[in-house]
Structures are given as C-alpha cells and as structure tokens.
C-alpha cells in the first residue's frame, strides 16, 4: 500500500500548504503573538504529517516521535515564547528588510524555483510524492528567506524553527525519515536549542532594550 493511499494526497497537500502559508505569514506578520500562533499551527501540520506516516507504518517509534514533536514543537514552544513576550512586553516584531510587496514577489519566485526542473533530481526520489516534495522545498526556501529577511531576533528564531520543520517534511516525503533513537536525539537537540535561543533573546533585550539585530554593530574589523 503506497504512502499517499492511506491519507488522501490532496489532504496532505492541504496540510503542507497550511505549513507553507504559515511561514509566509510569519514573514509579513507584525505581531509576535500572531507569529507564535502561526508557528504553533505550522508545527501542528508537521505533527499531522508524521501522524499520517504512523498510520501507514504502524511503527510505535513514529508514534512516540509524533507525541514528542507535539510536546516540544507545539506545546513547549508556544509556552516558551509566550512567556518571553509577556516578560519583556515584546508585542511587536521588528521590521523586515523587504516590504510586503517585495516579500510576496520573492516568495512567489522561491515557490517557482522549488517547482522548477532544477530540483527534479530531488523530486524524483519518490515520484509519487513529486508535488509534496516540491512544496516541502518551497517551504524550506521561504524559511531560509524568513531568516535572512528578518531584523528581529525572535523572527530569526522562528525562521530556524521553520527551517527545521521544512526539513522534517522533506525527509518524510522523500522517505528519509530516521530511526527512533536518531529522531529523539534530533528533537532533544532542538529542544535545547530552543531553550538557549530563548535565553539569548532575553540577553539581547537586556543589552539592547530591543530585539532589533540591526543594532548589533559592535563587532567590526
């Protein structure tokens, strides 16, 4: 039984589409609380994708991963970041380098790039999942753009976390998901990373009085 036959491929497309839209939204969002919710939804989409994988394989290991992803990426991250923005009253995100029209233009270009023949080698890993792999690639590119485009430390963190989600999606649709021990290791790394990133955001705020990373100009040649 093929992977996509269990859950309708179009449903997977919708779930991945939601994840993709959330990263586009984070790119243009001006409020930190909205960004956190968007990231939560994005992670939830990843949970559903992994859950679908469990339904296909019936491997207990994957179910454990689903639960861990839900706990770390959805529950813990929302709690962490909500606490952070309330502690420092960080209601608004810092501006981006590109304005909204330019952001949309670049996002459109990145989606076109992901669906172009340049990446046909990648999409041919599992031909049945071609469009899902292309969407995951677009997700990855837009996450990278989010990190580059953002002037705020918090948005950069969400960029890195979105990049991680996009790689999970890509790994699932290209059949590169790893064993339980490996995935637990990766999730543990991610959890520690998230904790450290949150501590650093507080440190940056204490020193700069804002999270605008463009104020970090003290290290020059």
């Amino acid at each position, binding site marked *: 039984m093929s992977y996509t036959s269990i859950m309708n491929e179009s449903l997977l497309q919708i779930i991945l589409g939601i994840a993709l839209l959330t990263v586009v939204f984070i790119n243009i969002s001006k409020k930190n609380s909205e960004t956190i919710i968007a990231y939560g939804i994005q992670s939830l989409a990843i949970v559903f994708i992994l859950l679908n994988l469990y339904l296909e394989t019936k491997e207990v290991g994957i179910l454990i991963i689903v639960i861990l992803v839900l706990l770390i990426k959805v529950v813990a991250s929302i709690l962490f970041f909500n606490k952070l923005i309330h502690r420092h009253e960080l209601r608004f995100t810092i501006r981006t380098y590109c304005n909204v029209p330019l952001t949309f233009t670049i996002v459109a270009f990145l989606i076109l790039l992901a669906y172009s023949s340049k990446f046909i080698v990648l999409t041919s890993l599992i031909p049945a999942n071609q469009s899902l792999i292309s969407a995951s690639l677009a997700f990855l590119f837009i996450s990278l753009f989010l990190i580059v485009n953002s002037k705020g430390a918090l948005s950069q963190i969400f960029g890195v976390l979105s990049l991680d989600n996009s790689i999970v999606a890509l790994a699932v649709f290209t059949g590169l998901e790893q064993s339980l021990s490996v995935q637990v290791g990766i999730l543990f790394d991610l959890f520690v990373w998230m904790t450290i990133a949150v501590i650093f955001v507080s*440190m940056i705020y204490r020193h700069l009085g804002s999270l605008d990373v463009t104020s*970090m100009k003290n290290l020059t040649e």
Partner: protein
Amino acid sequence: MEILITIFLLFIAALLGVITRRRNVIEGFTVIASCIVIICSFTIAFNVANNGQYQPYPFFYVDSLGAILIMIIGVIGLATTIYSIPYLRKETEKGIIGLTRVRQYYTLLNAFILMMYLAITSSSPIFFWIFLEATTLSTVFLISFYNKLTAVEAAWKYLIINSIALLLGFLGTLLFLSGAGQSESNGIVTWQFLIENATKLDPGIAKIALIFVLIGYGTKVGLAPMHTWLPDAHSKAPAPISALLSGVLLNIAFVAILRFKAITDIVTGSDYSQNILIVFGLLSIFISTFIIFSQKNYKRLLAYSSIENMGIISIGFALGGLGTLAGVLHIIFHSLIKSSLFMSVGTIFLRYSSTKIVNIQGVLKVLPITGITLIFGFLVITGTPPFGIFFSKLLLLSVGIEKIPIITVSIVLAMAIVFVGFMKHMSGMVFDEKPRNVETGNENIWLVIPPVVLLCIAFILVFYCPPYLYTLINSVVLNY
C-alpha cells in the same frame, strides 16, 4: 572500554561544575579526567594503527582520520584544561568573573570536549550531526561568557549562523542516506555502510547533497564565504576556548566534509568535489589574507589565520594524493600551533587587558617566555622553515603547481602577504617599548607550560614521526 571511560569521565567532570561549589575539586577532577582521556585517546589511536579501525560497540567507529582527531582532542584538551586554571584564577583575582562563572565554565568546557569526542567517534553520520550541533549549544555560552554586549552579539551570530548551516548540513546528510537504504538491525546507517553502498546513490542527488554538506559543515569549518561568525566568536570567547574552537572544532567539522567527499567521489568521480573544495579553499585564503594584513585585533588576526589555514587544508584534500598528505599534516600542525598561539595571546590579554594590536607593545620584555612562544608560533603558522607548516605548505604547492599552476602561484602570493601581515603586527607587539603602566616579569609558569609544550610537540613531529602516527597518516592518504 577506552571510549566509555572517556565519556564517563568527561560527563562527571561536566557534572561536577553543577553539583559542587568547591573550585579545587572541579579543577582537580577536570585535569585528572583530561589526563586519563589523553591516555585513552592514544590507546584508541594505537588500536586503529594496528587494526585499521576501532569499533568496540556498534555505536562507535574510529578510522585513521578519527584516530588523529581523537589524539588532537586529547592533547589540546589537556593543554587547555591546565591553562584554564591559572587563566580563570587570574580573571577571578581581577574581579572579571566570580565562582558561578567558573563553575559554568568547567561544565561547558567538559561538555564541549565530550561532544567533540562523541561526534568524532560516532559510527553514524546522523549522530555525528547531532553531536556537532551539541558543540554549538555547549560553546555558545562560552562565547558569551563575559556577558558583554559584543560577546552576546558574537554568540548570537554564532548560534544563528551555525544552526541554519547545520540544518542544511543535516539535509545534505539525509540526502546521502537516500541511496543507502535501511541498514543493519538497529536501523542506524553508519559511515561504513554509506561507503559500501555509495554506488547505489544517484549522482545528481550526491552532487546536491555535497553542496548542502559543504555549506552546512563548511560554515562550522569557517570556510569563506560562510566564515563570518568565526572571527567574532573566536575573539570574544575566553582564550582557552578559542584554542579549542580553532585547534579542534574546525577540524572535527572538516572530517564530515571529507567523509561525504569520499562517498561523492565514488559516485561522481573526484573532479566535482575537487573543484568545489578548491573554490571554497581559495575564497577562504584570499578573504582572510587581506583582512589579516589590515587587522587591528590580535585575536581576530588569529581567527582569520584559522580561516586561511582551513582554506589550505581544503585545497590539499581537493588535490588528493600528496595533497591529502599535506592536508593531514596541516591539520596536525595547525591544531597544535594555533592552540599554542591562542594561549599565548590569552596570557598577553591578562597582562595588557586589551585585544587591540596597537595597545600591545614590548611583550618580550613584559612576558619574556610568552614573547618567545609568540614569535615561534608566528614563524610556524606563517610557514617559515624548518617548522611543520612549512613542509605541509611545500607539499601542497608542489602538488598544486602540477595540477593547478595559476591558482598555486596566487596561493604563494597570498601566503607571502599573510607572512608580511603577521610580521607587521607581531614585530610591534613583541619588540616595541613596553607601555609604562604594564608590569614586567612574574609569568605564571602554568600559563607558560601548555603553549610551550604544544609548540615543542609540533617541533618534534617535524623531525620524528612515531611509527603509529605514520601508519595513521598513510591510511588517511589512502582512504581520503
């Protein structure tokens, strides 16, 4: 057994910083642990030299290159541990740090060494990645150790840039696994399994994967143009940590590139990886060369020198054959010398309280032994004969002049500029008249011994290469 002892001791040493407030206990145990780790490291290296590999348990695998790196971790780990004690005590005396910071330092230092050890001994590329990412997480607070704005800025850049890069490296790693299929009973794909099944990999996928790996792990190596975090991080971290970052961590990340390069070469032939490595290597050499010449901060100077040397190592491995030999020798000598140099400048910083080259004058009068160590370190790192790096560079150039003559000539020019740049900075630092407000003499012997010993090891290795090390180097040349 040696691996488990090492892991256990480093873990306990890291834990001690959390559970006890007794500084002497933490320092003492860390040194004892490092001494035992170095013995275990050399035992493993002997094993690899005799048997070709070391795999006591499925999770661990050490090949010849891994064995060399393990010895480097052992030697530089011990040197930095010994050096850290008087260094931190001096900083405590000056009121720069308190006991809490000291405890944090030893916890993170031991965790950092442990993660590097686990990465290099791991049999699986994915676990290698996990532990390499863990080195980022354990060192980020060491870079922001002084909690100044510049240190936080450096640490943030380090965290974000390396995390993005390592995620891309992870994607590259996954793509390499795509061809291998599922392996072994525990489901963990090992380096050996990847090599054995390399022919199953699609050449197009291998090419894309290598690009991701090079960008990902190359960032951690400090290859240009992804090097931007490195000068900031290395200049803001405490000197012993800079020694470990420059002398060990960069090489550990480079091992990943070399292993994936070996797999790609089987699939696509060596031309593809050779060209990419040469491009990254050249960029690293040229960008750092010009910045070295105009540098104003001596720790950044050494950091850019690391970028330059990583570029040289890349080109060495790209050329293959004797070039690989040059690369391995360069890894060994660069590790020893750069760590020695970072420790020397750490001692200078303790006395002068400045990292600006312009503020450092008359080191030879103020700190005579450190001054001499610095001069020798500078001569070695710039490739002056008859020191080790001279021979590795000579080997590289002799291979390069046959295969890539124009590029090789440009590398010679860059090396000359680096020498002049270092000479310009070092002559002022070492020989000028000392500032009036800086006291002379009274060098702490324990701040002097580690860098001197590292220099001596590098010097002895030029004239005498132990047979087992010779075997390991030969094996690396054959396999990479």
